[in-house]
């Protein structure tokens, strides 16, 4: 170390420029970090999708793509609708009141849909984003309880959902399947991604 005394004016300027550098760092980082965000093109890809549902037979399910996610449209049979009341006691959130994936008002009912038989939902498990598989067959079978009355099973971590996408209690998934905003243009045509709010 040298014995030259500290020059306080130089030190002040060093501290000041050091502070300026610290302030500048987040400004410099902003463009780099922002470049990680979805691009304008990715955002624009979120347009609504129109689906013709006249060809779906009761008990059948079709999958369409909306914002890169699988959206299910299913026509439920009367027996399947009847099972909804039966399983209510075993569900985590039977009335869809949780707000992580808010259920639109028009679907906050037992069947979670506008028309009782037609179920529209995003086929992505609220746990870690896998797509649950159809398990419409009732009764005992692998990975499912013996009193199974039809619904969906997530293959990744075993979360189970009833036929209205409501999650069973004590499963990894905390939320019911998301119901996307949707509305009917006519009896057979449904728009996914848009709805009429009042």
């Amino acid at each position, binding site marked *: 170390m040298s014995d030259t005394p500290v020059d306080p004016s130089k030190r002040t300027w060093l501290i000041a420029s050091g502070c300026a550098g610290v302030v500048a760092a987040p400004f410099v980082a902003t463009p780099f*970090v922002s470049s*990680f*965000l*979805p*691009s304008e093109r*990715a955002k624009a890809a*979120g347009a609504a999708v129109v689906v013709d549902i006249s060809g779906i037979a009761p008990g059948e399910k079709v*999958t369409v*793509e909306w*914002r*890169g*996610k*699988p959206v299910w449209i299913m026509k439920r049979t009367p027996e399947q609708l009847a099972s909804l009341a039966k399983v209510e006691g075993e569900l985590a959130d039977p009335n869809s009141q949780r707000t992580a994936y808010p259920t639109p008002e028009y679907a906050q009912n037992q069947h979670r849909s506008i028309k009782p038989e037609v179920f529209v939902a995003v*086929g992505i498990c609220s*746990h*870690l*984003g*896998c*797509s*649950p*598989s159809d398990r419409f067959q009732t009764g005992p079978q692998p*990975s499912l309880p013996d009193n199974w009355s039809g619904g969906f099973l*997530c*293959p*990744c*971590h*075993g979360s189970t959902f009833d036929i209205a996408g409501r999650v069973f*209690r*004590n*499963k*990894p*998934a*905390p939320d019911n399947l998301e119901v996307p905003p949707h509305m009917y243009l006519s009896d057979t045509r449904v728009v996914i991604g848009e709805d009429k709010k009042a």
Partner: protein
Amino acid sequence: MAEFKEISPNAPLGAKVGNWFNNRFPTAGAAYRDHLSEYYTPKNFNFWYFFGSLALLVLVIQIVTGIFLVMHYKPDAAKAFESVEYIMRDVPWGWLVRYMHSTGASAFFVVIYLHMYKSLIYGSYQKPRELVWVFGCSIFLVLMAEAFMGYLLPWGQMSYWGAQVIVNLFSAIPFIGPDLALLIRGDYVVSDATLNRFFSFHVIAVPLVLLGLVVAHILALHDVGSNNPDGVDIKGPNAPKDENGNPLDGVPFHPYFTVHDIFGVAVFLMVFSAVIFFAPEFGGYFLEYNNFIPADPLKTPAHIAPVWYFTPYYSMLRAITGEMMYVLVFCVAAAAAFIAVKSRLPGLFKGVIALVAAVAILVMLAIDAKFWGVVVMGGAVVILFFLPWLDYSPVRSIRYRPGWHKWMYGAFVVNFFVLGYLGVQPVSDLGGRVSQVGTLFYFGFFLLMPWWSRLGTFKPVPDRITFAAH
């Protein structure tokens, strides 16, 4: 500047060239002496000490094969899967380079797990080697990120859905989670944007960090010196030395251990080549069968599981359900009660600990089990970093610890294998229960270590290493 050395004009040409370089770049010669020809290494290294140099070998294999793969691979969601198949079918010898890289990834984890296990049983993380261990754990963590991002690149079903699951882990973090996941993906689902950035990270950003950490790991090791199976300090002030001050229990790394390690390399390469040529998919463990199907964002495969090296942690993630949270709450409450009753801390500290425990329990009950699953999974890796400060054993090596410690470590290894096995399997009731017990054991092993590691009768540690010339 070092002194400029003149050499006799009659010296042989080799000596002249050597002197010319040494005058201009003395650092190279000093590094050679510090790290090879004069780095004294304990004579009693055994089988377990092959894995450090093998890890370095695998790193080189991965970098070299990676460079060649990048020449043909296309990081584009529409072309990625096809370009990997192109490498496999059309590029001359491309299949070999690709299999070397994919097998190398698994080999890396085999070697690293064995390398870590050696540190565990011989106490190589104890004072003064804490930083060597911490750098090593950082390498392990960064390697996991590297492997995970590399696995997305072939853009098969497992690539896609594996990435979807792991990125969604971040969205479980309260408040910032969903935005963070969006920032990582660069889109609302795993997509072309995700593939491109993972490619960038996998090919340049993470390898640079990895190389830096490897250098820090080795430099820190050579500063404090290698441990050995006896845990005896060969360079300490009381250790026997020769007239030059070099340890009697050590030999220079080069040529003794370089030659020794070449033997290890030969055996390793035999096994490695056998896998590459005869079982590159390794029964679906190294390359999962579902990954030979192109990624389909609309359909999750019926059974998804990460590659084998992540499965113990994946089991722990799956083990945390709503019910398990009550068990964890009970553990926190029991720990706080134990401290309140048994410890000799002043009352104020006990009050603070009780308060912290109460807040922890409230938070544990308020936030979904999903988030805690992620915390447990991350915690299982992070807890390794703290090992040097959890182990209170007065001796380093398992050789001089009480006999039942061997059973503890044995149970730990068996537990790790069981968790790994369950992580590959589909969810089942029994498997879920077993992995919950396994998770508790894994954390109990580390968190209770300050207590159990000092129990029992320790054997006297010899002054010199156990070594017979051969």
